[in-house]
């Protein structure tokens, strides 16, 4: 209860809220409803595993019988971005792949989160050259960064729990991400 009240007080004021909602937002009914919605969201992620490279092998292990991601509710991958809410970017993103990543992110429906899995997505990893994107946060907003090459499955589960706690803290109303800050991915031309 206390955490939720703090979250509501810290909500930025430029978010357009009608006066009635602002007045009601501290009432018991709305906060409990908000907790229920957060509970639903955090314990039932539908993954979109955007698998490209070696981290995909560890993702198979994380979804496997020993380090079971199903225990945390995030079992079912949905291979259509419209139906998924957590995009796990697993593996190196090259410049050729970057517009596709942005396009898939733009197609996801709200609410959506992004999980950067592996060093290559966090910062480009050990590939600092003409072909590799140096971290996917140059393309899409990222919620959790899990470094490692590849990260051990326990680290991935730790990252998932951190994301669940983050979702619990977030306000539910008016929390839309929209398209990536780079806009639509359809106009591609060489920059720089």
């Amino acid at each position: 209860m206390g955490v939720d009240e703090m979250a509501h007080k810290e909500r930025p004021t430029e978010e357009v809220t009608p006066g009635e909602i602002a007045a009601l937002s501290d009432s018991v009914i709305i906060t409990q409803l908000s907790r229920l919605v957060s509970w639903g969201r955090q314990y039932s992620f539908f993954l979109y595993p955007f698998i490209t490279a070696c981290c995909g092998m560890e993702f198979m292990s994380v979804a496997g019988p020993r380090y079971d991601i199903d225990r945390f509710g995030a079992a079912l991958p949905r291979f259509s971005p419209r139906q998924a809410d957590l995009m796990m970017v697993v593996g190196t993103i090259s410049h050729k792949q970057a517009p596709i990543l942005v396009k898939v992110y733009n197609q996801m429906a709200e609410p959506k989160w992004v999980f950067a899995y592996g060093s290559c997505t966090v910062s480009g990893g050990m590939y600092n050259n003409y072909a590799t994107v140096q971290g996917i946060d140059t393309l899409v907003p990222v919620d959790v960064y899990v470094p490692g090459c590849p990260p051990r499955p326990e680290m991935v589960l730790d990252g998932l729990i951190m994301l669940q706690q983050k979702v619990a803290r977030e306000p539910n109303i008016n929390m839309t991400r929209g398209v990536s800050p780079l806009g639509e991915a359809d106009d591609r031309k060489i920059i720089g």
Partner: protein
Amino acid sequence: MGAMEMNEEKRRGQGASDSEVLARTKAVLGPMGVMIHTHSQHGDDTLVAHAEDVLKVMEFLRDDKSLKFDMMMDLTVVDYLGAEEVHPYLKPMNARFEVVYHLYSVEKNHRIRVKVPLPEDSPYVDSVTGIWVGADWFEREAWDLYGVMFRGHPNLKRILLYEDFVGHPLRKDYGKMKRQPLIGPVN
């Protein structure tokens, strides 16, 4: 240093006797005047040929009864800008690139390496897709990363990089960190 001297000997002295593959190749191709150099460094038979004679050499290697190189294992290009002393014949020919073919015979179980030096201002060589079908993608990759053009290739376009990419990145004068991102100002 012991290992270095051994290498020089192997390279200069051509070892004790040529292997069967190299002997047969020299016997037939030598009189035709297509060979520049042969060696067997580290046990790998190597033949260096002129760019104009590539098709002749490759057809002979594939069809000869005692050689029968029916599989083209690998095709790649080496850029010797700044390291011409590695091979003694590069400087006189003013060659910068060298197209390297690795061939293997499934029937006879032997290998050969064929190298074709090319100058910088005219990096053209005939395509061997008519001889081995599998050379298709290897030649596209060589064009993509090095800029060596293969005459007669059915579909010579980029394969590993995107269409808008400018330049040939594996050349020695292309910086590793030079960025040409498709999307994103930060990149």
